[in-house]
């Protein structure tokens, strides 16, 4: 069977392999507001995430992903996509992206950037959790930083992620 027929071409698109080989968000932050460790106990993938928040926006983000190509690529795309977003926008993107992976359509009016390349994961149900690790970790990070923002958080998790905040700094009021 050729790769196209088997869906492998859809899964391992070039954009995904590019992100996997050279993930975005490589540079460690000097002044992170939040640091969180995401871990997927089902497959052992790990993700450390640092976020710098200023004026309610995600100013900078650093990831140290360790896992399969799908989880690394998804984390890298997250890093690329959410810099500059407000926390609400980031969570909205997370919810929308999760909806798509669970079988929904791509909603209009949201810029998914390279994330659209992860469409093929839908054909590989056991790999959806890989694509979601970064997003669950982000959600945990923001939830711990700002419990108020969590009205937006989708409690219905189909994967288990243990995240704990390593260090948490409250922002100086501007």
């Amino acid at each position, binding site marked *: *069977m050729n790769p196209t027929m088997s869906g*492998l071409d859809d*899964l*391992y698109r070039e954009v995904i*392999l590019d992100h996997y080989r050279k993930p975005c968000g490589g540079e460690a932050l000097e002044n992170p507001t939040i640091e969180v460790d995401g871990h997927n106990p089902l*497959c*052992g993938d790990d993700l450390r995430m640092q976020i710098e928040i200023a004026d309610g926006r995600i100013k900078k983000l650093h990831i140290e992903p360790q896992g*399969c190509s*799908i989880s690394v690529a998804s984390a890298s795309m997250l890093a690329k996509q959410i810099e500059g977003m407000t926390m609400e926008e980031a969570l909205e993107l997370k919810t929308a992206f999760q909806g798509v992976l669970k079988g929904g359509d791509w909603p209009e009016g949201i810029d998914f950037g390279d994330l659209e390349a992860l469409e093929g994961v839908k054909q590989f149900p056991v*790999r959806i959790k890989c694509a979601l690790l970064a997003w669950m970790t982000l959600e945990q990070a923001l939830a711990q930083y700002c419990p108020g923002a969590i009205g937006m958080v989708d409690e219905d998790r189909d994967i288990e992620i243990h995240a704990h905040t390593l260090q948490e700094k409250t922002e100086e009021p501007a």
Partner: protein
Amino acid sequence: MSDDNHSEDQMLNTTSTEPAVTGSVSVHEETGAPAAEAGLDVSRIKQDFPILQRQIFGRRLVYLDNAATSQKPQCVIDAISDYYSGYNSNVHRGVHTLASEATSAYEDAREKIAAFINGDDPKSIIFTRNTTESINLVAHSWGRKHLFPNDEIVLTAMEHHSNIVPWQLLAKDVGCKIRVLDITDDGYLRLDQLNELLNEKTRLVALTQVSNALGTINPVRQIADAAHERGALVLVDGAQAMPHDTVDVEAMGADFFACSPHKALGPTGVGVLWARRDLLEEMDPFLGGGEMIRDVSFERSTWAAVPHKFEAGTPSIADVIGMGAAIDYLTSLGMENVRAHEQAIITYALERLRELPFISIYGPRNPEDRCGLVSFNDVDIHPHDLGTVVDRHGVAIRAGHHCAKPLMTRLGLVASARASFYVYNDMEDVDAFVDALYEARKVFGLPTT
């Protein structure tokens, strides 16, 4: 491993309902490798397993995740459905015909598994749900009674979580300590450290007979002798041993032996604990309820005799009966033949994998020190990606930490891929598996030399 048990008699008498055992050695046409079928007629065996007719993404299913659970032959499936359609009834409580048929089939299965592992007393066999429950039973019913603060339990660095966590729970409750026998980088137990580790405080040595993540076959007898010398008992996790070789609980020096027949052609839902009868007699019950009592009043209850004391409630009757059929099937193949077959396959698989410069292999180099499984990684591809790609080529392998995280940490790995073989696998399956590893390189645009 002697193969003299496939006598001519047996060869001539094989009928279509019996699994196939032959004495011929054939040569695989394409690879020229000697076929592993010395002793087992794999092409006939394959026909006994309906699931092997399945196509996965248009490919023949090559099932190499046997260490997780094996496939089931038609005779096992039939035994379960015959019970439900012919004599379904509860056991040990009823005078009607169905109850007596069900009870005798259930107790027959107990005798079969006892004979299979050479535990001569069927009353020493307790049915549980799986190896995990068997080990928990020992931790609960023996451990809580016999372990005290500062007592020590010795485990090894290659244990499955099911032979770690029950002891941790126990250690936390009673305040005893866990000590760990390390391994070498190539996956052998550090026997040189054994004497240092054992002392007068050691109460139990709990170890796996065969590692599910490395394939290493451990020298259980030697370790049991050392433990017994110090007055400690020995629990053997036989989950990966019992399906693949002749097991003799007496000869290996086990005091407790746990296994999971679902890895040995049997159904899920039934596990086995064998223990020395004298130990069982004085152990407390595990679960309380029906079937396990002699007498009950609101003031006090007394326990049924061993083994029923440990089998509270309605057991998994159909699955126990199905397990009996699986044991019959394996027995007619001959466990020496099963072992010889897997040796030939793993030898060939290691050879083929060693040809691939992009594959690292874990565990013993010498195939004789291994059961029929191999853990490995493609140095450039994460094992989950590898698992996904080979699956699309019909090849089912395992990827992950194999429920042995301390071992993975010890080896400096996060995860690995694992191929594990059984009676229905042949050299062509190994070739299909290796071909699929090449395909994965292509998907990732990586060189194959």
